[in-house]
């Protein structure tokens, strides 16, 4: 299925839940609401014509320092989907605010989301509701803060910890 047709299909099916779509040089992006996210992801994986069986990447972006985006929702959680059967791709985004940085988990749909969501929690502090064990992945448990947030000071040093007992 061609990317533009996928976006049209999502718009027809989910209506206002698709906030915005974007196409650039063969890359197609849809921004969806958080409320509809679980349903959209499930549809993308299970619909025979879409059949996105691979979650290639799941990450987040802190847009608080992006010109023109300072006042909007602070985080974008980004899903990169790929279909092995049809050889097509889709990027899905969902915007969440700093006050309520919670997104439904994608672990039941794609098990790889387990570690990816833990990484996003680790680095950005975005929580995933329903995740089986949302613990830090790259950093250690004692780390304070989320270093890929744009307001995390680049020079801040965490206190060194001794050997664990």
């Amino acid at each position: 299925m061609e990317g533009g047709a996928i976006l049209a299909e999502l718009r027809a099916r989910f209506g206002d839940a698709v906030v915005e779509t974007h196409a650039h040089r063969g890359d197609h992006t849809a921004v969806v609401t958080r409320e509809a996210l679980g349903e959209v992801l499930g549809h993308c994986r299970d619909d025979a014509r879409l059949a996105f069986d691979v979650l290639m990447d799941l990450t987040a972006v802190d847009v608080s320092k992006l010109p023109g985006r300072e006042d909007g929702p602070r985080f974008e959680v980004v899903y990169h989907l790929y279909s092995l059967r049809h050889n097509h791709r889709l990027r899905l985004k969902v915007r969440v605010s700093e006050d309520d940085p919670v997104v439904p988990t994608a672990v039941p749909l794609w098990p790889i989301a387990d570690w990816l969501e833990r990484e996003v929690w680790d680095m950005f502090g975005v929580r995933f509701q329903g995740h089986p064990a949302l613990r830090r992945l790259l950093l250690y448990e004692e780390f304070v803060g989320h270093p890929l947030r744009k307001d995390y000071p680049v020079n801040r040093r965490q206190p060194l910890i001794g050997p664990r007992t």
Partner: protein
Amino acid sequence: MGVGSFFTSKLDEAIGWARKYSIFQYPFVTACCGMEYMATACSHYDIDRFGAGLPRFSPRQADVLFVVGTISHKMAPVLKRVYDQMTEPKWVVAFGVCTCTGGFYDNYATVQGIDTIIPVDVYIPGCPPRPESVIDGLMKLQEKIAAGTQRF
């Protein structure tokens, strides 16, 4: 100068001489500098000819801790533990800029020099250091071992 003190200083030298030619290294290799370390250990540069090339991956059986590569805060407790488990006398070589100073990683993850955790005897700069620099550093360490007051 009594006979005893004269004898002690000579014994110091003898032990220092023996120690500098019987170094067992613990290579704590974490990053790209490890390639350079391997190059130094291979036949072209042959670190073995200094009596200093035997790697032992057990802290109990090593004299010199070679910290080769970037040390992150997550790794720091492990490095500290390895150092603590080494028996005296022990020495530490910081290999490469990341180990010496954090290198170009000025960020939340990287230890800005391992001397914030453990004492360091010789710093080998470079990113990565050439084998010649490594051998130079090693010889400096050998001089230091031989010249120091030996505890035994």
